[in-house]
């Protein structure tokens, strides 16, 4: 089985071709970073316009690199949500049109499940596994029980971790996107120079909160001479921020690991997925946290942690081989929780 996947839910226009023997035949990602950088964040209308300009050419390039034609495909998968709806629509219409012309099964994939199942493409991880999903829009701990079956253990009650990275970078004048900038600056910094809070650490649940950590970064800057961070201050703050985030993740993972092992004594894997999983420092911290809790960490290659089409093609393939497909009147879903039964947590608009 060979499946084509399209991803357009944020600021990457991406398409990929994967096979059911876990071969990645092509993976084309076109970043829109330069379009959004002047605004210090992703602008939804600009993103939607850029996706429309590029998605057909990106799709054609993925087929060319894979050395396949539409006739060789067994299905078309596309991100159906959650995400920026203007971009999602562009991808969904493109995928529907491909499916219609060639009479192929069409499957709408939950973007979060794309991240969640990537470790099965890269490392053949078996269900069940504990999953930490950390990105610019989400921060969740879940048990992955099967394709389309997730139990949420915890989520952020306010900001996602990637959002805290971006906002801290903005406070420090490090530019957009903040994740790589903070990680780079932290390499020259002292992680103990600034005493930053460890929100939620020690609490008897698996939730997160990062809004206060970002505020603490801003307040630390305001207390500096002249209210400005020197390059060394910024490096120290980045290192201190990452250390705090690492402590929180390790603590929350330990809680979740206990719940996971109680529910699934045979479970042995912690998977980390999402854009923040590209951070090398946090990967090291999570590796140690997994080991302390009797789990093995699986982190996909960095290029497959950030948004891409391969994860969508793979998640689509997993659904298709279980016989699931969607109708061509599918309506994109701007909100689409992985665990629809999980109760809302935290403030209205929290990234559950």
């Amino acid at each position, binding site marked *: 089985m060979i499946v084509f996947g399209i991803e357009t839910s944020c600021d990457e226009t991406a398409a990929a071709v994967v096979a059911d023997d876990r071969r990645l035949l092509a993976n084309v990602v076109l970043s829109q970073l330069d379009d959004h950088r002047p605004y210090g964040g992703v602008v939804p209308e600009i993103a939607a316009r850029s996706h429309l300009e590029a998605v057909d050419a990106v799709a054609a390039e993925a087929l060319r690199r894979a050395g396949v034609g539409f006739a060789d495909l067994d299905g078309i998968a596309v991100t159906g949500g959650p995400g920026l709806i203007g971009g999602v629509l562009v991808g969904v219409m*493109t995928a529907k049109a491909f499916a219609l012309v060639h009479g192929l099964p069409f499957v709408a994939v939950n973007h979060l499940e794309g991240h969640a199942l990537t470790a099965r493409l890269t490392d053949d991880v078996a269900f069940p596994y504990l999953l930490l999903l950390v990105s610019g829009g989400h921060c969740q701990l879940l048990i992955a029980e099967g394709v389309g079956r997730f139990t949420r253990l915890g989520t952020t009650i306010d900001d996602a971790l990637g959002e805290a990275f971006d906002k801290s970078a903005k406070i420090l004048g490090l530019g957009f996107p903040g994740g790589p900038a903070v990680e780079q600056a932290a390499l020259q910094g002292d992680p103990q120079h600034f005493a930053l809070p460890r929100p939620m650490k020690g609490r008897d649940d698996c939730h997160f909160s990062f809004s206060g950590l970002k505020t603490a970064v801003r307040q630390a800057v305001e207390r500096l001479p002249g209210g400005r961070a020197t390059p060394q201050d910024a490096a120290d703050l980045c290192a201190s921020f990452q250390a705090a985030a690492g402590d929180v993740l390790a603590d929350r993972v330990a809680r979740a690991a206990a719940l996971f092992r109680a529910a699934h004594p045979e479970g042995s894997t912690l998977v980390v997925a999402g854009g923040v999983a590209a951070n090398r420092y946090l990967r090291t911290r999570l590796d140690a946290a997994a080991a302390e809790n009797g789990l093995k960490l699986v982190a996909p290659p960095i290029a497959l942690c950030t948004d891409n089409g391969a994860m969508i093609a793979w998640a689509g393939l997993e659904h298709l081989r279980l016989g699931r497909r969607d109708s061509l009147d599918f309506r994109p879903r701007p909100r689409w929780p992985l665990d629809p039964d999980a109760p809302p947590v935290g403030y209205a608009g929290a990234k559950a």
Partner: protein
Amino acid sequence: MKLLAFDTATASCSAAVWCDGVVLAERCHAMERGHSEALVPMIAAVMDEAGLAFAELDGIAVTVGPGAFTGVRIGLATARALSLAANLPCLGVTTLEAVAADVQAENDVVVVLDAKRNDVYAQTFSPALQPLEEPAAILPEALAARLAGNAAVTLAGDGCELVTPVLEAAGVVFAVAPPRRPRAPVVARIAASRRQLRSPPPRPLYLRAPDVTLPKTA
């Protein structure tokens, strides 16, 4: 020449299969939203009713705007993807010229489309359907000033009622005629009249920059 044509840029969703002036199949539903769900099944239905496979078509025609940004993108993303998947040329027609080409009039035709803002999308065409100006997003008062003192014109499009009080106040002489929105067979007819082999994929006509301001630099 056999064309599949459709429009989702306005408050309706329409699709047609057209062959040398004959409409083989046509669907049209008024809708403010829901185009993304309706369009592809509608295309499947008209292709089925026309009894044609995509390989038997000579091209795809689509409206490129101006209209609702999301609707414009739904139509264009679908058209460009069909074009790639079926290896067919794809041709773009503006919503304004599609409405103008559907008007019966002996004088100049002013097409006015609802832009869901204070201004409207407007363009004036000669009776022979030559555009007399560039398409524009324009306030009703500015449109009235442009038309005041001219010979009588025919207005068409779903933005007419938004401008008629202002035009009357400015002394513009006009009559209102159908249609209110683009119809897919007309989109096909225009595309057929100007078809060039292997033109680049059509691009959206937004007439408006994204609603965003640059942050103040520190």
